């Protein structure tokens, strides 16, 4: 993250995202392709040919480009107008007049964590007779005899691996678009580590 200043001199914290250029690697259309739904597959970041399989090299060649490190499919409501080999850049946001975006990414993996750290549980008292259970979750369900349902409900929050989850951060202000370097500057934070892959889309609920 860094910060940029508005004309009035107000500092805005922003995350810089390298967004594209993304060539269209595959087009799926209802009726025309056997897939049965509408979508485009976008590629991002060149991969060295010797690190790609022949299948991927062939797949990229169809779109007239080199093999890519990341391929992601974007589902669309209507039949896509894009053709194979078209290149999508940050300009798509400009043309749509986007002011807010949603950013989808995979959060940082934080390893095995107890319930206090993972879910913010309160733990147990430090004293008044508490022994060796200061960070335990407490009760997780009543006893239930066989055949009468289950004692511990599915989805009960317990200790386990924290992080490395797909998360969407919604309605982030799109502060600046740098067409030359294909950069988006989004106000605030974005899921994932520095250098992680994210998907940026126009905000679904805020214009």
């Amino acid at each position: 993250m860094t910060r940029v200043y508005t004309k009035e001199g107000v500092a805005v914290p922003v995350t810089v995202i390298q967004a594209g250029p993304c060539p269209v690697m595959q087009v799926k259309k209802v009726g025309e392709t056997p897939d049965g739904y509408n979508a485009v597959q976008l590629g991002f970041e060149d991969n060295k040919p010797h690190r790609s399989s022949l299948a991927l090299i062939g797949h990229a060649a169809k779109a007239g480009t080199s093999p890519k490190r990341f391929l992601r499919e974007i589902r669309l409501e209507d039949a896509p107008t894009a053709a194979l080999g078209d290149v999508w850049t940050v300009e798509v946001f400009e043309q749509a007049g986007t002011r807010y975006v949603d950013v989808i990414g995979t959060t940082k993996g934080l390893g095995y964590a107890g319930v206090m750290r993972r879910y913010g549980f309160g733990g147990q008292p430090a004293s008044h007779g508490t022994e060796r259970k200061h960070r335990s979750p407490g009760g997780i369900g009543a006893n239930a005899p066989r055949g009468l349902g289950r004692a511990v409900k599915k989805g009960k929050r317990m200790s386990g691996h924290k992080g490395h989850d797909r998360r969407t951060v919604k309605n982030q202000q799109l502060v600046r678009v740098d067409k030359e370097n294909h950069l988006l500057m989004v106000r605030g934070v974005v899921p994932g580590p520095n250098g992680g892959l994210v998907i940026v889309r126009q905000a679904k609920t805020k214009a």
Partner: protein
Amino acid sequence: MMHPLIKAVEQADRNENPPEFRIGDTVSVHVRIIEGNKQRIQPYTGVVIGRRGKGMGETFTVRRIVNNEGVERIFPLHSPKIAKVELVRAGHVRRAKLYYLRDRVGKARRVKDRKRITKGEAVAAE
């Protein structure tokens, strides 16, 4: 280490000649104040007692005494609100953070003058 992308973005945005001064210097910070659609400049003079951060987030703290009350203002080094920073007096100190000045009263509050002044600072003082 700073990510190359961030570095490039900051290059474009940063104050091209960041003001030159050191900890312990007495400076006059010219702050742009926007009132309605009029803009005027208000100087704020005091001793630089610290600098922190790097890149676009770098800030410095200026301490002065107003009506017998200590006042500290923190300025972002690259803020467009800062018209210029004028060097009033070069000070000699042996600390990076002059928090000890907060406990000093009267004459003890003074900072020794620095004899050697570098070229860039001389230009800034003009």
